[in-house]
């Protein structure tokens, strides 16, 4: 006879082992990037253009390029995403159209990032003749983060108690006034969280910007939205695979700046969620 208690112990040990196999490497990766990247971080690294064939100097154009791209993506995606979430949470009836919209959002979230790159190339760069530019890249990234923003915002809006809507409507407020003055203010934390997570995702993606905006080497700051630009993830790709003999310091330093940017955004999202949750108890 097998002893069920011992079986349980062994089983739980293996479950724990599996968990450790995932979580430990994550910790190690972050720690090693921070440890090896930190020595590279200096004022010059953050504010200078790349020099010596990208083996020296700084990464300012890549940082600025990424910031522009992220900003552009959000300017495009936030209004559409938020309104779409409002539609789904406040207006949509349980019908075929709503089902199709939800399915479309699920699919939008699942499209491989490199396919977004192709799409951006065909539609924005070639068809609309925006060329490889910040505009093309931002729009591509914007569509990519749209499902993140819609899903998070919709959850946030739907978590606002129905009773609040009834109170507002019962006072003679119109539907839009109710959304504007009661639903949105109470769902704002979830919307912000979703938006910031979308920003983080946009900042870290490489494939969608490969053919829509990214410049291999473009040692100046972009002047208009029709300029090409460098971007942190693509720059990391370039100096780790395309340019020989780039020092570890440069590569880890770039990786750290990118990781730091993304993690800061995620922490901000966490803090926002936590603070609003504490403030709003209903």
């Amino acid at each position: 006879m097998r002893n069920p208690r011992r079986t349980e112990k062994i089983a739980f040990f293996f479950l724990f082992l599996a968990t450790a196999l995932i979580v430990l490497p994550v910790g190690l990766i972050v720690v090693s990037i921070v440890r090896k990247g930190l020595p590279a971080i200096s004022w010059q690294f953050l504010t200078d253009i790349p020099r010596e064939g990208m083996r020296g100097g700084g990464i300012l154009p890549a940082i600025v390029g990424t910031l522009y791209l992220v900003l552009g993506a959000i300017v495009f995606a936030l209004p559409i995403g938020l309104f779409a979430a409002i539609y789904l949470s406040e207006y949509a009836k349980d019908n075929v159209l709503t089902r199709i919209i939800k399915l479309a959002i699920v699919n939008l979230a699942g499209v491989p990032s490199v396919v977004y790159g192709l799409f951006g190339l065909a539609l924005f760069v070639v068809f609309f003749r925006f060329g490889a530019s910040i505009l093309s890249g931002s729009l591509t990234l914007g569509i990519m983060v749209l499902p993140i923003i819609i899903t998070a915002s919709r959850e946030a809006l739907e978590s606002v108690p129905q009773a609040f809507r009834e109170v507002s409507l019962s006072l003679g407020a119109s539907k839009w006034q109710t959304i504007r003055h009661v639903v949105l203010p109470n769902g704002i934390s979830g919307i912000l969280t979703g938006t910031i997570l979308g920003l983080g995702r946009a900042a870290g993606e490489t494939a969608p910007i490969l053919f829509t905006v990214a410049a291999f080497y473009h040692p100046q700051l972009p002047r208009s939205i029709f300029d090409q630009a460098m971007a942190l993830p693509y720059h990391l790709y370039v100096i780790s695979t395309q340019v020989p003999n780039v020092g570890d310091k440069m590569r880890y330093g770039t990786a750290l700046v990118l990781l730091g940017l993304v993690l800061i955004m995620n922490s901000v999202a966490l803090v926002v969620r936590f603070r609003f949750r504490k403030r709003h108890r209903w």
Partner: protein
Amino acid sequence: MKFSLRDLNVWFGSVHALTDVTMDIPANEILGVIGPANSGKSTFLRTLNRLNELKPNFRMTGDVRLSGADINKTDVDLLRKKVGMVFALPLPLPLSVFDNVAYGPKMHGVRTKKRQKEIVERALKEAYLWDEVKDRLDTPASKLSGGQQQRLCMARTLAVEPEVILFDEPCSGLDPISTAKIEDTMLRLKANYTLVLVTNNVHQASRVADKTAFFLSGRLIELDDTDKIFTAPSDKRTEDYIGGRFG
């Protein structure tokens, strides 16, 4: 007559929630509505300010008129401005005391702070809450006690100057003292407003209502003067319910 209803039928999907309700609600009186759970009394109440429409599968037939005008042909926001509602649980919006009361007037275009202050003060006085909160208008409404919150909700409704106020079991979560205050307020409001009070508590109806309606399984069984309903009801089922034999 404030409200007149003729052959009102309401469905939610396949559920027939109200069947052939015909009644009149006179002005400046309190109409008590009693009945067991799921008897349709809340649905009846929410018909009067068209709040049932929020449910996706709602459907109604029949004729409901407010001061002679078909409510389904009235602008819904205007109707709800005229027909205010106080809900079962105190439901202050997550705003300050002041902003809760000022919410309705703001939505109806009262922009100046001075005007808002006047309205808030008047409404809070009408709900007999002014003296208790006048020094803390900026605190969150959730900081008030349950009874105060419910009177705040009354003030909020009064602030938009309705003609009718609907009460949906307004004292279900409150202690006897708070309940007494609310009932007292209702009796005083009668002079200027028409009140409809849905309650699970038959004694509450007997204490405040001028007329009382008894609902059972979506039908209006009996509507008469409260004294008559409680002393000599004409329907056996009314007598059974009031006597506590079911429900």
